[in-house]
């Protein structure tokens, strides 16, 4: 029998992903594909703009508009996933998002103090990395807590 699970570590996280309902899996798949498309468009646009492969005009506008539009679609797709998600999965996601946001908030203001003191200079992208790491940690934590 599969009952009374008390797994820990990554096994509980993998089981959490596997136990998603078909609707959640479909919505997550859509959100992930749009997110991947956004990442590809963003990296391509950044590369092209920084290397001066695009010299203004309609192409430059396209390089800005396409990743932005895909980013909005990704946010909407993730919002839909959250709205329709199984209630425990939604709770785990929201707790992970809160952890990621909190970590980003604290990091941003701590870094601004450290920069004012002249001790460190950190790129804005590093703050998003901290948010992503804490979000993933929150997902792992939630999956383990409710396993």
């Amino acid at each position, binding site marked *: 029998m599969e*009952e009374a699970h008390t797994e820990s570590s990554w096994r509980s996280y993998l089981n959490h992903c596997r*136990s998603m309902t078909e609707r959640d899996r479909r919505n997550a798949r859509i959100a992930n594909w749009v997110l991947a498309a956004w990442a590809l468009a963003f990296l391509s646009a950044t590369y092209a703009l920084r290397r001066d492969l695009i010299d203004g005009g309609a192409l430059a506008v396209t390089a800005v508009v396409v990743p932005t539009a895909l980013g909005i679609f990704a946010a909407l797709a993730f919002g839909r996933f959250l709205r329709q998600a*199984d*209630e425990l999965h939604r709770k785990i996601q929201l707790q992970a998002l809160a952890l990621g946001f909190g970590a980003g908030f604290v990091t941003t203001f701590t870094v601004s103090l450290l920069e004012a003191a002249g001790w460190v200079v950190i790129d804005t992208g590093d703050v998003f990395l901290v948010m992503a790491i804490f979000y993933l940690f929150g997902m792992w934590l939630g999956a383990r807590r*409710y396993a």
Partner: protein
Amino acid sequence: MKNRLKVLRAERDWTQARLADELEVSRQTVNAIETGKYDPSLPLAFRIAGLFGQSIEEIFHSDGER
């Protein structure tokens, strides 16, 4: 909060996966409710009660109650 979900499911010889399908939730949710790690929302509690033909109070009760 305690509940009799596991007993009710066992009486019907259902797996957690079968019950999850009936309730349209994940198997992890069923497991978490049965082990008392997660308290279901009111709409889900009503769905559980409706599925087993009992009232919410007959299935769920606070830790202090018998």
